[in-house]
């Protein structure tokens, strides 16, 4: 019944262990770099330089981080209710429809700050809709959400190909994408925020959806730990039978949580569509939904952990591009490896180093106790 591992102080539990897991993931990634005959330290230098070396780089890093905050929150919210939403990828993809519709409708007539709230609503609504079905199927029909969301990712992908090649594509165009939005469909960049720190944003697409992401993170914190719904979610996540006893409707919570999770995933679409490309393209999500799994695991499903974890992955994405440029043998696929390693070490193997760390703490505790005793004597 009790925790099989020794109890650790909070900072070790939430700081040290994730850090150790992360370091190991990077060490293994370093081995892959060695394997292709390059110098891992040089790669690390390019990565960090590429991510933070200039205002523009930082802008790109934060641009990617914005995306990952949304998807990380999406996965984390579901985790709290004991649900594993692997479908953030597809929900973000479908969420794009909401953004595109708002922009295509109003971009020529309205300013961005009118279109933006509509696009927020649209993206969240479409994302939530795509998560509703798996949630409903689990709640009412008992089909496991892990499997159905995987299936829904593929269905979303086929659906979007269809929409972008047949429906949303402007007449006469060959490319599977919507038309480019006018000013109303373009989010302003956060030059002012960067200039406070004396940085120049350059060409990077760092935009106001970052602020929305921070707001969403705060909102998720409030939701989970400060609302009745969050209390009900956590009850269900920890103990479904207690939830039933407390009169917490499992079906209701499952559906609501999946929709919140899907809505958060959908918001991610704002960043690339309105913030960078100013149109909806095929495959604009580019695996961000899956990065969200890594981010949520790294951040221990807590918004205060998810933001740094998302920035870390933003750094990988931006710095990874720099490595690819400087060291052609290492393409951006390196990031995918690191992402997988982080998921492996921070997720599936999260307990691997815990016993050793626990023992270390126990022996330090004993030694200092012994030392105190000898001093006392």
């Amino acid at each position: 019944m009790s925790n099989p591992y020794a109890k650790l102080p909070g900072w070790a539990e939430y700081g040290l262990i994730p850090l150790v897991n992360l370091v190991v993931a990077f060490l293994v990634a370093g081995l892959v770099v060695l394997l292709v005959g390059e110098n891992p330290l040089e790669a690390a230098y390019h990565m960090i330089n590429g991510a933070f070396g200039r205002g523009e780089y930082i802008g790109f890093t934060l641009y990617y981080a914005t995306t990952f905050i949304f998807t990380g929150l999406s996965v984390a919210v579901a985790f709290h209710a004991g649900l594993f939403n692997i479908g953030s990828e597809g929900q973000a993809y479908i969420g794009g429809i909401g953004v595109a519709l708002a922009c295509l409708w109003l971009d020529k007539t309205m300013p961005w700050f009118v279109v933006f709230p509509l696009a927020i609503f649209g993206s969240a609504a479409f994302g939530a809709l795509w998560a509703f079905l798996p949630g409903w199927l689990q709640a009412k029909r008992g089909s496991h959400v892990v499997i159905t969301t995987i299936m829904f990712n593929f269905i979303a992908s086929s659906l979007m190909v269809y929409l972008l090649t047949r429906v949303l594509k402007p007449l006469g165009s060959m490319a599977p994408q919507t038309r480019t939005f006018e000013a109303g469909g373009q989010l302003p960049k956060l030059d002012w925020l960067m200039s406070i720190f004396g940085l120049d944003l350059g060409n990077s697409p760092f935009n106001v959806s970052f602020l929305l992401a921070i707001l969403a993170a705060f909102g998720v914190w409030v939701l989970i730990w400060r609302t009745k719904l969050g209390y009900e979610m956590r009850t269900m996540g920890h103990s479904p039978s207690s939830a039933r006893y407390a009169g917490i409707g499992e079906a209701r919570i499952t559906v609501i949580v999946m929709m919140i999770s899907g809505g958060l995933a959908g918001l991610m679409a704002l960043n690339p569509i309105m913030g960078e490309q100013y149109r909806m393209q095929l495959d604009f999500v580019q695996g961000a939904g899956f990065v969200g799994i890594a981010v949520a695991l790294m951040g221990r499903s807590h918004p205060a952990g998810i933001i740094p974890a998302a920035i870390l992955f933003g750094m990988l994405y931006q710095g990874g591009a720099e490595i690819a440029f400087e060291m052609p043998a290492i393409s951006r696929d390196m990031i995918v490896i690191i992402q997988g390693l982080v998921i492996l070490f921070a997720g599936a193997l999260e307990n691997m180093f815990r016993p050793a760390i626990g023992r270390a703490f126990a022996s330090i505790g004993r030694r200092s106790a012994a030392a105190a005793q000898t001093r006392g004597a």
Partner: protein
Amino acid sequence: MEFFHTIIAILESTIRVSVPLIFAALAGLFTERAGVFDIGLEGKMLGAAFAAGAVAAVTGSVMMGLLAAILISVLLSLVHGYASITQRGSQIVSGVAINFIVAGSTVILGEAWFKQGGRTPALAGDARFQTVTFPFADAVKDVPIFGPIYSNLLSGHFILTYVAFLLVPFSWWVLYRTRFGLRLRAVGENPGAVDTAGISVIWLRYRAVICCGILCGFAGAYLSLAMSAGFVKGMTAGKGYIALAALIFAKWRPVNIMLACLLFGFLDALAIRLQGNPLPLIGQVPVQLMQALPYILTVILLAGFIGKAIPPKAGGIPYVKER
């Protein structure tokens, strides 16, 4: 007669695309029946395909390629086993991780070693599987009905194709007629029963996971050594997930797995064949719908609208001795 030839052609490509699905779904059958869920079929298959393509290109031997595929796939399985059996981590998280690690490393290593944009060099001759022609296949080719069926549909496939179809009854036999199979099914239902009977749950599950690795190795080798002449990045293209869907669709039973894979393969073959051509009676069907159909069907099955898929009872739960 034209229609008949079209049918034969579609069925022939159905078999071709079903083979990796059958290998992979049977692979999943072994681990999932033992209580270890595996959404890393995709990654293992991809890793195996790469290993096969790379080693066959370097050694010029198709057998070395196949062995390398099996070796890599088993290694990946062992990583999954270590995470989910020994460390009792989340089986789903571990599977996801493996898919990513492989997706990234095959490209990086492929590019570093062969510099062909993530491909391995094109294979020819002994470095690739050859098709097997049945006796008299040429002679009976023009016999109506029987001719095309014998010489096009049954004959002329790769040896691995026949292996895949033979593995279906073989897997059934292993699971239901051997001691190993009995224990494997037991450990997926109630590991406590296996443990108290004096059998190691951990070693049994590791063996199941290794079986999965071997079969995924075949699946990957088929992709890069038979179906194509070499490895292309991301060449599994979701086949691992379709195999997973087929496994569920088949309710974790060997013969059903073959039928489910053939069905999904048929949909795929049909989609390729149609490519904008209208379907008789139904009319124009978007190719994307055909591609999504396996997933849609699986969701409908999971929803319990056509039967109920009940997974092994201990599936997904790490075994902890009770206190």
